[in-house]
């Protein structure tokens, strides 16, 4: 396997995003920038109740308002057909149907969709919503997780378990945790509490649908997973996939929050079919928060056992996860809170129970670091306690327990490349750890934490044998290289990554390459921008296609020059005979030879994850967390905590991340810095609070994120473990780098003021209360 064919220097080079100038000039087209002739504005009436049965809906007055073209309710065909991102957990509908039994007849959170209209203007559409009359029968809401565990006659969803509101329960046990715990030299752990947070992308949720004269549906939508939307639309619209076209214009940030098929996409499509006009639905910021799908609030109990030398022996995790009203990715979340917790450490005994419950609150879903962030905080904090109790340096404790490269975990993960050791050593050295840990003045502290994340899911959420990603390349006589691949560019730089992976084997300049990644009619399926899969999977598919084109160009050059094909390389826009570089054709000459009598060169590349090893089928949930490779991190954070107010200022972060190989170091740095910003937000200030089921402050004034002035200095340390199967050795860089920042800061706070934080966000009031509880005197360090 040629893991590092970087001879042309296209990969590995700091490369501005290929679409960056479109963005800096305002030329880039996002969904809301599109207008179609005859386009109407769609608006959704939302529930003021947490849990209510719909007795009746009367839209007649709204429909009679001048300028209103259609109203949509659950009475309309398709509106109550179930969909969801996971085929095993379809529990979402576009709109509820009055009088229907079960979930179809209810609204289940404040903000849930009740009805919708399409009108000539936003003003008219909003006026029409006010004319819709709805009769509700209010049901008791389930707002707390403890409530959701109890038996009920009125479960929120129909697929609940045990007669309660439990959506999913996961139980796994490897080795013998109780026995090992009992006899271990040390056991540490505790109960952790994590509040929900929102992605906070700047582009609001939006879609525009057009059901046209040919009975075809086209939808333009800000989506990370156009293919899963495509599948959901085919269910709800009861149309074959080939009559539906999904177009993803530029997307203004996703972070997991645009990775579900959503009701508004169904509603826009159904409205358009009803009035035969294009319909655009744009959320206001409050609706974005109501739609949520952010990180799950979670209560996590964790215990880690170790021997006196600091070897980790057993891990016990119990997570109670608040899913809100819908399933979304929740089955995956239920697994990830456990199965991703042990790595990057070797752990022979592991037990996990995860329970995700439905509550009558805004749905939770995937968010950057999906499922792994909260348990990682609990785990790395506990490791800090183990290290302190055993008087072992926290860096040394971690080094003692690393998973070796090319190994297998107890739950069947195949570990290949693994740069954790180098991450720890470099973060330790660059931060001056050995001179600082336990030695900084009162109120200042330093903390360390590691991370571990998937680089794509090896298992497909739809059970089939199709490739995870497919890329086509076309080159015609104009010499432009067009890549087609539906991998969703959402700002992370995937178009640039595809262009690099194609330009490198072809030895051409990047500006020869055009990337088409937005149109399901022309671009082959990629499963989407989630689970940190695109670089590894789409990158490999694109590289494979490019190598086939390279071979064709070499063959045509060999034929023309009469030299053996074996000796040719593509470099600097030429096809060169290596033994005698005088023998060469320009890229265009070689192309002309290849096109003669043949026409445009086409090639296809596809990526299929390798079959799992080890534990196939041996236990329930064996597929969860399997990835073709994993990313690893180690971060050190240095903080200053005001001894009077407990205000935390993160001064420095040394962020070492093993991304296999940095195809584009500029983009890798950008991902790591962005992860640190988002992770610090969850660590220090972001929270979605509810009052009686209503989100408090669903806007950026109340939902605070870090300002530029609050960002620490960040020293990005890229570690390259050269993954044997990654494209040019690369693996993910978009999500794993979020994981270690939260516990690194928590551990640094302990080092600074001796307060152990088990609840996020770590706001000054909570640190003060924890200090009171833990008997820590303000301004004093514990010993």
């Amino acid at each position, binding site marked *: 396997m040629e893991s590092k064919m970087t001879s042309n220097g296209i990969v590995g080079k700091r490369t501005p995003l290929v679409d960056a*100038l479109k963005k800096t000039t305002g030329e880039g087209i996002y969904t809301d920038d599109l207008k179609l002739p005859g386009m109407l504005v769609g608006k959704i009436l939302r529930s003021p109740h947490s849990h209510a049965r719909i007795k009746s809906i009367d839209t007649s007055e709204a429909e009679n308002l001048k300028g209103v073209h259609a109203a949509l309710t659950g009475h309309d065909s398709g509106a109550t057909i179930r969909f969801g991102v996971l085929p095993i957990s379809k529990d979402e509908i576009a709109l509820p149907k009055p009088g229907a039994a079960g979930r179809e007849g209810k609204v289940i959170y404040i903000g849930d969709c009740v009805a919708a209209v399409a009108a000539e203007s936003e003003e008219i559409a909003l006026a029409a919503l006010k004319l819709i009359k709805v009769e509700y029968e209010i049901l008791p809401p389930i707002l707390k997780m403890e409530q959701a565990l109890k038996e009920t006659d009125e479960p929120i969803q129909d697929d609940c378990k045990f007669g309660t509101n439990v959506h999913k329960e996961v139980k796994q046990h490897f080795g013998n945790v109780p026995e090992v715990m009992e006899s271990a030299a040390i056991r540490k752990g505790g109960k952790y509490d994590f509040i929900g947070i929102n992605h906070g*992308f*700047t582009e609001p949720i939006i879609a525009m649908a057009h059901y046209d004269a040919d009975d075809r549906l086209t939808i333009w939508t800000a989506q990370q997973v156009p293919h899963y939307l495509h599948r959901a639309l085919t269910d709800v619209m009861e149309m074959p996939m080939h009559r539906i076209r999904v177009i993803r214009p530029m997307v203004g940030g*996703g972070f997991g929050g645009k990775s579900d098929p959503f009701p508004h996409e169904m509603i826009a499509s159904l409205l358009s079919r009803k009035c035969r006009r294009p319909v655009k639905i744009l959320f206001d*910021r409050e609706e974005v928060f109501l739609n949520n799908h952010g990180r799950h609030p979670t209560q996590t109990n964790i215990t880690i056992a170790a021997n006196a030398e600091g070897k980790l022996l057993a891990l016990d995790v119990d997570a109670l996860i608040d899913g809100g009203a819908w399933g979304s990715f929740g089955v995956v979340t239920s697994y990830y809170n456990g199965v991703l917790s042990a790595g990057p450490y070797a752990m022979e005994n592991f037990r996990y129970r995860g329970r995700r419950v439905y509550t009558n609150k805004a749905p939770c879903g995937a968010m950057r670091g999906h499922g792994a962030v909260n348990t990682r905080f609990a785990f790395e904090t506990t490791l800090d306690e183990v290290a302190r109790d055993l008087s072992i340096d926290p860096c040394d404790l971690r080094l003692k327990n690393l998973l070796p490269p090319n190994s297998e975990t107890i739950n069947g993960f195949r570990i290949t490349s693994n740069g954790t050791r180098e991450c720890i050593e470099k973060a330790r050295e660059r931060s001056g750890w050995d001179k600082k840990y336990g030695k900084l003045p009162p109120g200042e502290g330093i903390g360390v934490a590691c991370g571990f994340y998937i680089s794509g899911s090896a298992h497909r959420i739809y059970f089939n044998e199709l490739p995870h990603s497919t890329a086509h390349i076309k080159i015609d006589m104009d010499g432009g290289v067009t890549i087609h691949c539906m991998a969703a560019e959402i*700002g992370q730089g995937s178009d640039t990554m595809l262009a690099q992976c194609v330009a490198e084997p072809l030895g051409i300049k990047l500006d020869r390459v055009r990337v088409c990644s937005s149109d399901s009619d022309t671009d082959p399926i990629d499963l989407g921008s989630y689970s940190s899969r695109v670089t590894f999977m789409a990158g490999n598919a694109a590289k494979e296609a490019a190598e086939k084109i390279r071979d064709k160009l070499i063959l045509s050059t060999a034929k023309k020059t009469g030299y053996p094909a074996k000796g040719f390389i593509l470099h600097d826009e030429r096809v060169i005979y290596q033994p005698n570089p005088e023998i060469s054709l320009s890229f265009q000459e070689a192309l002309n030879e290849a096109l003669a009598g043949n026409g445009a060169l086409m090639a296809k590349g596809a990526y299929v994850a390798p079959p799992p090893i080890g534990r196939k089928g041996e236990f329930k949930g064996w597929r969860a967390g399997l990835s073709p490779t994993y990313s690893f991190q180690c971060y050190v954070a240095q903080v200053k905590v005001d001894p009077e107010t407990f205000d935390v200022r993160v001064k420095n972060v040394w962020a070492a991340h093993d991304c296999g190989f940095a195809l584009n170091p500029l983009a890798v740095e950008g991902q790591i810095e962005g*992860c640190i*910003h988002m992770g610090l937000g969850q660590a220090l200030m972001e929270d979605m609070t509810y009052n009686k089921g209503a989100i408090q402050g669903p806007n950026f004034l109340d939902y605070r994120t870090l300002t530029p002035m609050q960002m620490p200095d*960040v020293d990005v340390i890229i570690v390259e473990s050269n993954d044997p199967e990654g494209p040019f050795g690369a693996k993910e860089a978009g999500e794993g780098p979020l994981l270690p920042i939260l516990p690194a800061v928590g551990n640094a706070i302990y080092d600074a003021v001796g307060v152990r934080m088990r609840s996020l966000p770590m706001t000054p009031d909570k640190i003060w209360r924890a200090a009171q509880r833990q008997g820590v005197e303000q301004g004093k360090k514990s010993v």
Partner: protein
Amino acid sequence: MKTTKQVIRLNVNGSEFEVAVKPYDVLLDVIRERLNFTGTKRGCDMGTCGCCAVLVDGRARLSCLTLVLDCIDKEITTIEGLKKGELDPLQRTFAEAGGSQCGFCTQGFIMAAKTLLQDNHNPTRPEIEEAISGNLCRCTGYIKIIDAIEMAAAQIENKQGSINGK
């Protein structure tokens, strides 16, 4: 609901437009929806994200909070109006430094930076941080945005230096 419209002249990117507006119409709605300068983005409609910033008489203003009637006889510049033949240095440096990822907030930051660099040719990083603290970016962690503004400041300084024969 019925409010009398009045016809006003609006100077946007050096051209004059005649538009009929209601007294409560905000600048964002007029430039985006009516005049089709879609480079100006709608992120929150309540002055919290900065994606809609435009220059009004050379100063960054949040167009979602600016009544269009307050803009009569003023020069409005949107992101489309920044490039005059060649790109504004900020438009290049935001791309080169990685200051734009998803790009939705980018033009707002460029407007804030443009205003800063008019007042302060050689800003420090803390000064840049303060100048852009009304803008929200969720991708970059702001670091490469600040890099981009520093790079642009250096380029402008060099250019002016060479003009002045330094």
